[in-house]
């Protein structure tokens, strides 16, 4: 049961590994960028896993709610809201660069690009 309580964190670790491997091992730029979103997504999971409290509910304090209601921790949620937006911003920028690379080199495979740059 102790390990089960850490299951979220293990998944976080595995996603991080998959993401990093995808970024570093794949020469295709779009694939690497997908890897980057997985890598960032893993971190969202780390933070959000921290906000949960047993028997709690979302941090919305409605009038008339019983005084002993347990609320989830709002802070990690706020942080991840911003982190998600950072993620999409980075991805959009990366994709735009990928499109321009394709236009300039005719390919989005990094090894082929490297080959072309060396010839130059």
């Amino acid at each position, binding site marked *: 049961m102790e390990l089960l309580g850490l299951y979220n964190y293990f998944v976080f670790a595995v996603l*991080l590994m998959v993401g990093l491997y995808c970024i570093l091992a794949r020469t295709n730029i779009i694939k690497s960028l997908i890897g980057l979103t997985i*890598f960032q997504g893993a971190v969202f999971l780390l933070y959000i896993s921290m906000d949960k409290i047993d028997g709690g509910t979302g941090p919305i304090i409605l009038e008339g709610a019983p005084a002993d209601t347990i609320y989830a921790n709002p802070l990690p949620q706020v942080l991840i809201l911003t982190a998600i937006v950072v993620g999409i911003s*980075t991805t959009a920028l*990366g994709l735009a*660069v990928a499109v321009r690379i394709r236009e*300039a080199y005719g390919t989005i495979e990094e090894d082929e690009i490297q080959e072309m740059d060396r010839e130059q």
Partner: protein
Amino acid sequence: MTLHDQLPALLVVVPLVTAPIAYLLRAHGLPWAAAVAANVTAFIIACALAATVYGGETIIYEMGGWPAPYGIVLHIDALSALMAMLVTGASAAALIFGAKSLADEVGEEIAPSFFAAWILCTAGLTGMVITGDAFNIFVFMEISSLSTYILVSAGPDRRALVATYRYIVMGTIGATLYLIGVGFLYMATGSLNTVDIAARIGDVTEVRLLLVAAGFITVGLALKAAIFPLHSWMPNAYTFAPNVVTVFIAAASAKVSLYVLIRIDYAIFYKNIPNHELQLALLLVPMGILALFAGSMLAIYEKNLKRLLAYSSVAQVGYIALGISMASVSGLTAAIVHMFNHGLIKGGMFMAVACLALRYRSVNIANLAGAGRAMPWTMAAFVIGGLGLIGVPLTPGFISKWYLVLGALEKGGLGAVLVAAILLSSLLAVIYVWKVVEVAYFKEPRANAVPVEREAPLVMLIPTWIVVLAGLWIAIDSSMPVTMATLGAETLLGAR
């Protein structure tokens, strides 16, 4: 609240507000003018703040009026003020310097977004420097990184795009690693405010969390600061970015990551993780020494002048890493002073390179034959900068080297090795600087080369020489950066 009380916030707010306005300005030259105005204002504010904290005070500014640790506070002491001056000064100088060269390199259509990105890059870097909140550092790190990507991608060569892509990937990995580290810190302490974390971290029993948090933060920031062997993104980004952009990012942006590294490692972990001093040394000493030699050797064999200077930056960052690893007042002072001095030196040198590139249309060293005679002032600025990299007295590099060796000597046996490494790599710097000098002064231009007869325009020469002279002034009277760096080092080590 008086205007003076609002200065910490204004340092970031002025550029932030100017950026969207600059983006909307479509008339020729106006976005540039807005950028200059914002950056010069920010520089003045930074100087005013530095004057306020020069005696060792700390300014706390509560964003939104919420006290720490609940709200985000700005935290300004001598160290952050020094860095803020470096960032805003480098940015303003590079912009003014680039008035002509940028119009040349950056197209009219993208000028608004280019200059808005530039302003935001300054805002992001200063934001990282003055904030007192670990997560807020991440946010402003992203502001500065994303805007730097835009600036680099504006380079004229298609290889700028590939360089930008690598920069995006590595920069994002670095920032994400930092974010993971902050997550673990939050998990262990429940707080995000750096001062609060430092106060609470002593009670934490989960040492593994702290250890790994420290590791992730350090490695993430080392990646952003391009400490060898995590530098792979940097040489090409510097090389293919527009020349004026290189001036700015080489002078300021990697330094800020190093600053955050110092700040977090010393303010939070240093006293609270057992043997953190040793861990830091085990990580940074090998990296630093490798950086010194690998960077210098790569620079020696490099044919492209911009990339040569980029590799030299890899080596120079090695000095800073060594200074950080020493965990002593003189070591940290050396690291901080060198961040400042190297900013001045490299900024000036890349300015000279931009002048050369304007006239020669090339930054291949072989094509610069005869530059010593055709462009005497530019080359003189370059040589003075080069002497600074070597660490010759009367250049700012000497001051940093002095403290670095002083710090190393305190370390006994290992210190002797460090001193040897530091000085040996200075000598390697002689080789790569002199390689350029010999071509520029003593080689006859090729017969088929287009002869260059004119100096760079005054709008470029004057800022270059202002930076060079500022460097020389610092070299002769180093009291300003040294006082602030020593104050910062003493505060970080808890000696004050």
